[in-house]
């Protein structure tokens, strides 16, 4: 069963070149990670950094952890854990980013638009009261004489 590319258990033996090439690629990606952080990419900086990290992770998982030549079920196990982390991340992120800013003076989270709308309503109500009070006073003055 054993030959140049398989051991006695029939498992695949990666050539030395494969391991060194993957290590070289990982070093390149590490330099790229650092370069991405220095470059001014604006809002794309974070997603690109994560893409680079995922590339490194893919290389480690596929070649160092031998998933490329391994039984498919081990791949399913690993990928499923990533899937459930994604579910976890998805709901957490839409919750946290979907809130307004923390307003300590209000004591809770509220959207700025809501605050503005409340302020506008209160201002309108105050203005209405002022005009109504003014009208009443004018009427009272009229009644007086």
């Amino acid at each position, binding site marked *: 069963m*054993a030959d140049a590319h398989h*051991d*006695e*258990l*029939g*498992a695949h*033996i*990666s050539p*030395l070149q494969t*391991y*060194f090439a*993957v*290590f070289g690629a*990982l*070093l390149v990606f*590490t330099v790229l*990670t*650092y370069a*991405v*952080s220095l470059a001014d*990419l604006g809002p794309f*900086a*974070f997603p690109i*950094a*994560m893409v*680079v*990290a995922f590339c*490194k*992770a893919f290389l*480690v*998982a596929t*070649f*160092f*952890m031998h998933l490329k030549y*391994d*039984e498919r*079920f*081990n791949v399913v*196990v*690993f990928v*499923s*854990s*990533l899937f*459930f*982390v994604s579910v*976890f*991340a998805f709901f*957490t*992120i839409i919750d*946290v*980013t979907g809130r307004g800013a*923390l307003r300590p003076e209000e004591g809770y989270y509220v959207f700025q638009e809501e605050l503005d709308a409340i302020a506008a309503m209160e201002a309108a109500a105050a203005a209405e009261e002022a005009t109504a009070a003014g009208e009443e006073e004018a009427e009272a003055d009229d009644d007086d004489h």
Partner: protein
Amino acid sequence: MGHAADHAHSGHSPFFQHHFIDMRQQASSAKLGMWLFLAQEVLFFSVLFMAYFIFRTLYPETWLVAHYKLDAALGGLNTVVLLFSSLTMALAVRAAQVNAKKQQVIMLAVTIACAFVFLVVKYFEYMSKIGKGLLPGNLYSYSGDIPGAPELFFTVYFCMTGLHGIHVVAGIIVLFWLLIRAGKGHFNSGYYSPMENVGLYWHLVDLVWIFLFPLLYLVK
């Protein structure tokens, strides 16, 4: 070990466990067990990554300023050290696959040495933080000005790198066990499950750091 004198070694490894059909199935089962554990480890670390994202979303200005207190050069060095240790670990497993006993021992020794270098660098990093009062939660006592909630950033920093560091220490202990067994010639082309599975664990430790480094040290 369960190998009675009446049972002559019928060509199988002394480490064959008879409730398995053959060595191949034994190795396959052991590897599946390790992958299930690694799936758990991914979920385990994901909790801290979520805490990182929640606090980063709520206090972006803190993250942008506080992360400069971390030494990105040391973080980068640790990244390269761990990547190299992953390479030597993979080469150690390969050495077992091709019956190269001396190479197994050398590669394992280098992996352990790299792990120690990682811990030493982390020690210096932690000492620097502690000295400046850049500590988690209530312990935070830094005199400089970092906007928002810097104690949260350092809570996340110490919890994530601390948990990762504990995994490195556990890895070192297991690697030493492997080193001793490899030195005794236990592993060969027909039996190398312990090597392979510890290797998988070690690659996961590396994987976690691959994400920790840009998220903590290179925030943008």
